[in-house]
């Protein structure tokens, strides 16, 4: 196995790190409202997570319309009809626009994905607005503890595949390397085709109407295979498009060749 055990947060302790003390407190007091963090928002009702969104990952509207599960007009009609009453989800199901099971699957997936990004480490303090509800309305509430557990598991999961987060936020470029031992699966091939040196993981996710976390998982696999790499930031400060999240780079210039050799050595063990 090529997994590297790295847990800088809590050496020697079994207790998982607390992602957001504020979120814990809000769950304990069964709060209702919106927890706004640097990279996304969690909506709570009675201390449970009922919705989450993050600019890093496509919302449920993009996911449903991109795949053809719902037409754009159908979505906007639902928002117009039921948005003010904050029951868009129920309207979509009751009107026969989206099957109940499909809405639950799509919404749950989007919730955990957005929460993963929203709960990313940040230096910016979070804010909570009591009483705010999201217009999607009740679909399938999730306990805060489950969201925290899943977010931590996902971080470890990504690092187990390939312990270098360089591809998570930077523009991506496919390398000239050829897949050696196994052909690239169709889902990963579609990502590879969009890695044009400009698009980031979030851009690709939006283009494909696919969860950004799913995209990260496939990108780490492609990076591990040496098929994709992050484009290094140019020294001249190009005007970055508004809305794109600038992630601080931990290492300005990681030694890719060294990382490759490390990986090869670990795999040979």
């Amino acid at each position, binding site marked *: 196995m090529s997994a590297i055990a790295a847990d800088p947060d809590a050496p020697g302790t079994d207790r998982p790190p607390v992602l957001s003390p504020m979120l814990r407190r809000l769950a304990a007091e069964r709060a209702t409202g919106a927890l706004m963090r640097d990279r996304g928002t969690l909506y709570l009702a009675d201390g449970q997570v009922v919705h989450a969104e993050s600019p890093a990952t496509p919302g449920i509207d993009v*996911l*449903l319309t*991109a*795949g*053809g*599960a719902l037409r754009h007009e159908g979505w906007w009609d639902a928002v117009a009809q039921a948005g003010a009453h904050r029951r868009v989800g129920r309207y979509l*199901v*009751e009107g*026969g626009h989206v*099957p*109940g*099971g*499909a809405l*639950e*699957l*799509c919404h*749950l*997936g989007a919730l*955990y994905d957005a929460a993963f990004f929203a709960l990313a480490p940040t230096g910016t303090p979070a804010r909570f607005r009591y009483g705010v509800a999201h217009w999607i309305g009740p679909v*399938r509430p999730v306990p805060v503890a489950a969201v925290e*557990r*899943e977010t931590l*598991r*996902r971080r470890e*999961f990504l690092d187990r595949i390939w312990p270098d987060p360089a591809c998570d936020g930077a523009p991506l470029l496919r390398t000239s390397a050829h*897949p050696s031992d*196994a*052909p*690239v*699966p*169709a*889902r990963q*091939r*579609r990502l590879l085709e969009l890695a044009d040196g400009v698009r980031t993981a979030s851009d690709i996710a939006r283009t*494909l*109407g*696919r*969860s950004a*976390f*799913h995209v990260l*998982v*496939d990108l780490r696999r492609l990076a591990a295979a040496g098929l994709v790499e992050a484009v290094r930031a140019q020294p001249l400060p190009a005007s970055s498009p508004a809305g794109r999240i600038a992630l601080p780079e931990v290492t300005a210039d990681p030694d890719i060749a060294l990382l490759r050799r490390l990986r090869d050595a670990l795999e040979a063990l």
Partner: protein
Amino acid sequence: MPGIDECLLEVMRLPGARGASVVDWTSGLALGTIGESPNGDHEATAAETAEVARMTAEQPAFAHLAPDGGPQDRGEAPGTPVEDVIVTTHDGYHMLRFVETAFDSSVFLHLWLDRSEGNLALARMRLGELAERLVLA
């Protein structure tokens, strides 16, 4: 209008059903669970079975993929041509049934059946029906 819980309740009505779950095979997340889990931890089981589902879904042998990763099957089918995976153990059956959705997803149903009470053929047919009904209203 059935949802995840209704679907899982229906699955558990199959003779010999011990436990079931709805799992996302890219992330390993359990979207819904019911009954027992082989190792007492539905979340861990979901992560483990997800890996099996992913390997199966992505195997070129099952996916009619061109060996050089060529443009042969680019982008047409949203999901995998694999319908299900069946694993037989000393005392049970495990059935992973892929769920096809109209949006991008990687979801499957996992059913754990008792070997002496379960009927594999019946369970396979029924699980296929329920996987369809889950997303087709």
